[in-house]
């Protein structure tokens, strides 16, 4: 078991004990929500885990690194950024996927750009955002987030 796993579990346990001392009924409600969210996310977890297995088992590293690796260049980054903006994968599940891509030859830049556009930009939720906040704010926010994601990725590729 690695360090991160231990830290996350200890942190959650600490919060749970603190919550329990503060208010038992509310904590019980929180646990019901937790259980419900867990069950709800489970099918997607299993699906993505199988997908990762297939990806690493069948697609050769050379192919992955050609599309999203160091030598893919700016075009590769752009493709990844657009994919991240369009795809509607829950962010919690995108991290194992990102880690498997990194393992199989994707560049740090590509992975960082992918996660960032995936979480920050929602093409699927854009109509709702426009309706609630108006065209200007919604379009500017999503458009600039796209640029920011690429900048973050490029800087991370440099320093990591």
């Amino acid at each position, binding site marked *: 078991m690695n360090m991160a796993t231990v830290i996350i579990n200890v942190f959650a346990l600490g919060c749970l004990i603190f*919550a329990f001392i503060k208010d038992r009924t509310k904590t019980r409600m929180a646990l019901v929500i937790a259980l419900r969210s867990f069950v*709800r996310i489970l099918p997607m977890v299993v699906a993505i885990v199988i997908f990762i297995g297939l990806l690493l088992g*069948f697609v050769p590293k050379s192919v992955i690194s050609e599309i999203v690796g160091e030598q893919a260049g700016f075009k590769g980054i752009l493709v990844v950024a657009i994919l991240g903006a369009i795809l509607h994968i829950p962010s919690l599940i995108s991290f194992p996927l990102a880690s498997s891509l990194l393992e199989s030859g994707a560049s740090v830049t590509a992975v960082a750009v992918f996660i960032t556009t995936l979480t920050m930009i929602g093409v699927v939720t854009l109509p709702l955002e426009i309706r609630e906040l108006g065209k200007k704010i919604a379009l500017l926010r999503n458009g600039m987030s796209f640029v920011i994601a690429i900048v973050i990725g490029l800087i991370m590729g440099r320093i990591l």
Partner: protein
Amino acid sequence: MKKALREGQRKDTMTDLVFLGFVSIVAIVLLSIFPDRRGVVITTSWGFFVEMISILPAVMVLIGIFAVFVPKEIVVRYLGKDAGIKGIFLAMIMGALPTGPLYIAFPIASVLLKKGARVSNIVIFLSAWSCIKIPQELVELEFLGFKFMLVRLILTIGLVILMGLTIEWMIGMWKKIEVNSKP
């Protein structure tokens, strides 16, 4: 609002199940055509599954605790017209608290905007909500390591603040031009 949320969740679960079914069928077909790959695929999938399962309950407990102890009303109350560093800081923290999916954040942001909150804070709040969520950072820590998580977090915070201020400035300019061009 709640009813719409439930409806949305049910739809999401259906799509997830369809996706799971599709991936399973592809896996079964591929692995029966290429039995020599079974070992690699199963070991890889199992490894990732164990890693996910060893942190997901903890992450979900955190989401549950925050959902109950930090209701939406508190977010709205604390995110007013506060300008400057304090406003930015609050917008960031309120967005980062694990309080649900992005489509809940839009109506909150809309209410705040009507109540006169600054555009920069709204943009920062929404961006923090979508990409600086606490559970999300924990899962990133688990799978991509401390360095990757921290560097991306710092860069994101810095650039999101810059973006918020830029958008506010642009919208301000826009309004000025509109006012001036009126005869």
